[in-house]
């Protein structure tokens, strides 16, 4: 090949060479397993080797008869809603406080709030498993503050499971949300505040009519991310409760998928759970699109 021929060749082949490692691995290790998961969801399987076609049997059983799956969906949905109702206001509130003029040590506060985000869910689970044990530091501190011995079964009392997982989850994610809101608040045009001030708008009205519309995109993004993350909750309760928890109150959709697929060994059933999870997430996405459409209609 001549020098010029080689030159032309490498220029034309370059993009294909650049994407091909990605594309090959993507096809073999992501697309193919995805299609297999779809295929398996119509089968009953025993381990990876044996499978029997049962049509929609897995889906039918999951939706009509599997009470544990129902419990998992319920737990996951309740957690997600409770998480969002607490995380969004706390994060936004902290961001607002921190954005105020004349607040000192901003970066120290910011890093204190954010640092927990670096700790993985498993490690958070391990830490809080120890804190929440009957003689653990949380009960010790509450006893010391109240001056008498109090033993709360944070992880053994079914009613305390949701609060315990929520506390650990909020510790993990609130600072992270605050960082996003803070960035969004900084991007709101200061002239809008001045204009609102001149028009005589009070603190509340400025928040409702300037701040909220200004950070709308980040707000929706945070809700979406929180909802998606909530529906995929697994490690935190799995480690914190060492499994499904008392009365199965800590079982989540993904935990159930894991148990059915890799403890019970029915990959087909686990696949069907996975695809139902996809359907639920698609509903969340659709809700978001709907929100944007109505909002545009309102502003148009």
């Amino acid at each position, binding site marked *: 090949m001549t020098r010029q021929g080689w030159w032309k060749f490498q220029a034309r082949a370059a993009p294909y060479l650049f994407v091909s490692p990605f594309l090959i691995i993507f096809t073999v290790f992501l697309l193919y*397993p995805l299609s297999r998961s779809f295929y398996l969801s119509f089968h009953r399987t025993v381990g*990876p080797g044996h499978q029997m076609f049962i049509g929609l049997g897995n889906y039918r059983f999951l939706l009509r008869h599997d009470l544990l799956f129902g419990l998992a969906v319920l737990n996951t949905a309740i957690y997600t809603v409770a998480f969002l109702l607490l995380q969004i206001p706390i994060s936004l509130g902290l961001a607002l406080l921190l954005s105020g003029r004349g607040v000192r040590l901003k970066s120290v506060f910011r890093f204190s709030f954010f640092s*927990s985000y670096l700790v993985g869910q498993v490690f958070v689970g391990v*830490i809080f498993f120890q804190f929440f044990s009957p003689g653990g530091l949380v009960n010790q501190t509450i006893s010391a503050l109240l001056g008498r011995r109090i033993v709360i079964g944070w992880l053994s009392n079914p009613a305390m499971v949701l609060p315990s997982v929520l506390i650990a989850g909020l510790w993990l994610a609130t600072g992270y949300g605050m960082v996003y809101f803070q960035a969004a608040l900084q991007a709101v045009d200061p002239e809008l505040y001045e204009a609102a001030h001149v028009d005589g708008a009070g603190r509340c009205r400025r928040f409702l009519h300037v701040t909220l519309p200004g950070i709308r995109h980040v707000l929706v993004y945070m809700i979406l991310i929180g909802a998606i993350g909530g529906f*995929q909750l697994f490690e935190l309760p799995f480690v914190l409760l060492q499994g499904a928890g008392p009365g199965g109150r800590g079982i989540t959709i993904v935990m159930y998928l894991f148990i059915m697929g890799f403890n019970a060994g029915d990959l087909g059933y686990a696949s069907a759970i996975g695809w139902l999870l996809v359907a639920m997430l698609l509903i969340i996405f659709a809700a978001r699109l709907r929100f944007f459409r109505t909002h545009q209609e309102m502003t148009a």
Partner: protein
Amino acid sequence: MRKAAIHFLLTLTAIIAVLPFFWLICAAFKNPQDLAGSTFVPWNHLNQLTLDNFRALADQPVGRWLVNSIFLASVHTVLVVTLSSLGGFALAKYQFRGKGLIAVIMLITILMPSQVFLPGSYELMYHLHWLDSYWAIIVPGSVSVLGIFLFRQAMRELPDELLQCGRLDGCSEARLWWEIALPVVRPMIAAYTLLSFLSEWNSFLWPQVILQSESKFTLPIGLNNLNGLPQFQHSYGIVMAATLISILPVAVFFFALQGDFISGLASGAVKG
């Protein structure tokens, strides 16, 4: 007055946010009796602090898991950053056949929760005889749809004239990537490197499915096992010492780079 209230509220929340870290450190350096007796470290108890918990860890393969975690997270990060930046460069700066199709397929898979891939991936690993092997963790993890999206977005802003100049100067296309495109998106690379390392360091579900022998465990898998052992139910200083060892490397790593990282993380969302 208002300012004081704001500072009070912020300080209170910051204390709550940092308290678990403080407890973790206290628990790791205290013996069980001391820990049961006092929640914090009273000044007159300082001489009771001990390294016993860390010594007791020598009986557990925690050092091994630490090495495994560092190895896997490093290999993962190098591969995923390289492949994502190469692919992102091609998608941002070249016209070629199948480009639209790639974008559509990527968009569909990015909406999929990773768990729906699990049964199919497990089956594939079984047939490849990759169960209990690091190949199963390294190879599928080396591509990231999110990564390629991020690099494509960042490299779109690269002026075509700059690349054309490079070509006239006799740069091959691979050198354009290495010497022009990569330096321009360096802030993105820094943020994405940290993010990839962190996500692999904390990754649990897939390694838990794949790894079976204790000597191959990563820290999250090993620690979850330790945590469940009955012998540690009443001497949890040891588990806390192991946890401290697990989160300290990333904490140090991030503390050095925190400013850039935190603002880099959020700027994408605000722009987008």
